[in-house]
């Protein structure tokens, strides 16, 4: 018996035939959306629901959750982010069973509960790049439910500034005989630009409400503490200036926002303009506006956009990646690649760090996942091109007799105590306990200790590249862990010795006086200051408008 070699294509034809009644020239009415999903999807299908860090195919997510579990069941969901209640409703209602994902943010607690009740079978928790990679290997979606700003009558899609994951999902699905369904905010005669060609899209639905977008990267400068200002001064003088960090990525948070806001003031006063922080893989952080306006920043490529930054970004096309229509084009897969291979430094915060420098944001009853941090925060061993910062870090880490190579700078920046006086330094990560409870194959470590080059706290900087033994490494970490139990158990002599060798550097050692760490150094102290810096182009979401 000879095999037909087009089972996938036949499956596609079968599905399209069932859906024929709902569509007119690819367009499906919103009230038929649930029926369309029930017609197109088959039990056991692998379905990608576009849930990004920011924009969400929220209407399609709700429709899928409303489907009849008699007709749709045992689905295998593959999606980068679970952030809406509907993303978990499909499991609770028995429509989906298996899940491969990357990040769960606001649903982390509920996800852990459903896993404990055996309502969800987790395939694996990925980084974004890993999951995107698997879309093209063994997790290719049969049906992809995506979202775009607008479609035209032919079915071309305009994703707007928040393109994010859409190109990767659609490419994987459309070129392996899958079906692509897009919800759009509006259908227009003429798109500003085409982000996804019509030939890759099967159905378009004008959603009753615009898709939800979360302003995830906005930090109100009013909430930056003077300890965070001090830590930002340490980062700039002790790391950025030291290595000449010119290409970088910042994690989300007030710690890194403080660095961004000190560039036009403190970093400028150190004569660092034009020498550091010119090229970024970064979402359009509002906190970066003063640095851009002061001429610090030459280019920014973004994973996604940020609510309220649209007009500013469009007006700064020298800096941001924009289309001919003027609006930004983001792309998570490509920006992640840029962060991994083209940046010399990643700096970010975390919840817990252990004595080896492993860090984790997992707590015992939350399955938060990874997102992009493990890729941003890892030494890319496949990198070959050199830069000054990369070579210097590599030289510091070099052991006698080894082949010389470069190193990425991976900085973990934490206050020794987090809110509610929880210590950031611990003997054992909560990730161990979570792994046992959720039956994960490994503790979910966000950044492995051997990838971390520096640990930065208000007590100083520990340069782990210079540590020669595991014991030195442990003492270097204890030596900046302040009054936490881990910090108090330091070997004082050894820590002083590490300080003499420059492995540990205190603010004093860097010529930074802690009393100079004033909020007055922030280039913007309020969101309104950011609006002023932008010349009125930044239009912050109303929850951030304290005026």
């Amino acid at each position, binding site marked *: 018996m000879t095999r037909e070699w087009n089972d996938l294509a036949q499956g596609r034809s079968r599905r399209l035939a069932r859906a024929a009644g709902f569509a007119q020239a690819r367009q499906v009415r919103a009230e038929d959306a649930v029926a369309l999903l029930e017609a197109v999807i088959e039990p056991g299908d692998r379905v990608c629901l576009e849930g990004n860090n920011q924009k969400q195919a929220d209407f399609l997510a709700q429709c899928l959750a409303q489907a009849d579990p008699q007709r749709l069941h045992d689905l295998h969901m593959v999606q980068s982010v679970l952030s809406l209640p509907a993303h978990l409703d499909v499991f609770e209602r028995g429509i989906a069973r298996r899940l491969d994902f990357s990040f769960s943010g606001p649903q982390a607690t509920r996800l852990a509960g459903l896993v404990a009740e055996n309502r969800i079978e987790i395939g694996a928790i990925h980084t974004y790049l890993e999951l995107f990679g698997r879309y093209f290997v063994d997790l290719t979606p049969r049906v992809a439910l995506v979202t775009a700003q607008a479609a035209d009558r032919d079915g071309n899609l305009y994703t707007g500034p928040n393109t994010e994951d859409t190109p990767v999902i659609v490419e994987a699905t459309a070129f392996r005989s899958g079906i692509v369904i897009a919800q759009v905010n509006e259908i227009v005669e003429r798109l500003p630009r085409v982000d996804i060609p019509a030939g890759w899209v099967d159905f378009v639905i004008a959603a009753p409400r615009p898709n939800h977008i979360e302003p995830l990267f906005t930090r109100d400068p009013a909430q930056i503490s003077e300890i965070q200002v001090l830590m930002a001064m340490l980062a700039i003088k002790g790391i950025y200036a030291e290595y000449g960090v010119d290409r970088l990525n910042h994690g989300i948070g007030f710690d890194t926002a403080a660095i961004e806001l000190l560039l036009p003031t403190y970093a400028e*006063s150190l004569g660092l303009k034009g020498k550091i922080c010119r090229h970024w893989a970064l979402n359009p952080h509002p906190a970066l506006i003063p640095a851009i306006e*002061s001429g610090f920043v030459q280019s920014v490529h973004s994973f996604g956009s940020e609510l309220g930054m649209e007009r500013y970004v469009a007006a700064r096309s020298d800096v941001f990646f924009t289309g001919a229509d003027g609006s930004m084009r983001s792309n998570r897969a490509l920006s992640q690649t840029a962060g991994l291979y083209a940046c010399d430094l990643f700096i970010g915060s975390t919840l817990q760090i252990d004595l080896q420098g492993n860090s984790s944001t997992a707590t015992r009853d939350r399955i938060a996942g990874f997102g992009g941090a493990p890729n941003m925060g890892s030494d890319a061993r496949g990198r070959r091109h050199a830069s000054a910062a990369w070579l210097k870090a590599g030289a510091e880490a070099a052991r006698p007799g080894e082949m010389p190579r470069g190193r990425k700078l991976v900085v973990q920046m934490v206050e020794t105590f987090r809110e509610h006086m929880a210590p950031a330094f611990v003997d054992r990560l909560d990730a161990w306990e979570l792994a046992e409870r959720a039956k994960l194959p490994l503790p979910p470590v966000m950044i492995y200790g051997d990838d971390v080059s520096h640990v930065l706290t208000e007590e100083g900087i520990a340069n782990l590249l210079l540590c020669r033994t595991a014991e030195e490494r442990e003492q270097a970490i204890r030596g900046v862990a302040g009054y936490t139990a881990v910090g108090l158990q330091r070997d004082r002599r050894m820590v002083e010795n590490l300080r003499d060798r420059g492995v540990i550097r205190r603010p004093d050692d860097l010529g930074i006086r802690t009393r100079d760490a004033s909020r007055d150094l922030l280039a913007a102290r309020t969101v309104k200051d950011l609006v002023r810096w932008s010349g009125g182009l930044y239009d912050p979401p109303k929850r951030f*408008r304290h005026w």
Partner: protein
Amino acid sequence: MKPPHAKATAAEPSAVNAVHDSSTRSFYEADARARIAGLLDRASFREFVGPCRRMASPHLTPLDQPGAFDDGVVVGEGLLRGRRVLIAAQQGAFLGGGVGEVHGAKLTGLLERAVTERPAAVLLLLDTGGVRLHEANAGLIAISEILRATLAARAAGVAVLALIGSGNGAFGGMGIVARCCSAVLMSEEGRLSLSGPEVIETVRGVEEFDARDRALVWRVTGGKHRFLLGEANLLVADRIDAFADAVLAALDGLHESGDSLVALEREQTRLSQRIADYGDCRDGLEIWRRQGIAEPERLPLLDTAEFLAAAATRGTPCN
């Protein structure tokens, strides 16, 4: 447009050393003691019942709540540009500036002292959500005592000024105290109202008031709106010295003679007219439009000087 803090970009090392002069720095960012230090003439402040006396609240320990040696309020006397004033500043970071028994007694005592000492003014630097809920009735009684003492000081001819430019603003019972003062001086960052936005949302629902819509919160309770409604007599920029200037301007324009019946009746008529004019408005924006201000949408973003220029064009009613 000029970057807001161009000052801090001067060359090294002065940029780092140039901690702003204490009187020109932000009133909003300063804490109670820094506000007093910035307002008063150098070294002129003398504190009453200071932290060394450890007059902390007796009600917090049983609740396992940490106390403060000054119970969250600093009171004392000093010179403001040479004029002798009594001054109180609430510590907003301590229990939201809530008024408890000791806190309230310090304020009442200060105001009562004004009757005998006759200073140029009593300055109340408010940073409070009102009654400290932990102390319940003691806090409520304290508010009524503060109100009585405020009116007594005014009746004795001493001006009592409320300065509102802080993170907590002046809400609850202290919102009432503010409106019983001779004059209210605000920055746009300051807020003045009775029930807080979150309380309204909790009690009446998000349809009544969306407390997460911070821009709306400011359009309804913020300094600019209070100025346009005539409740704040002066609107100043968020600098400590701007508040000091405003105190002098307010004192020079005030003649505290106790509210006569005529004045009270005039005020009653004004408030009745205000309800008739604006009672159906849902947002400060609608009121500003009815006042005849051109492009009211732009008001929130204007600097204080630009705003005052724009506000000067309004037709009435009110004020």
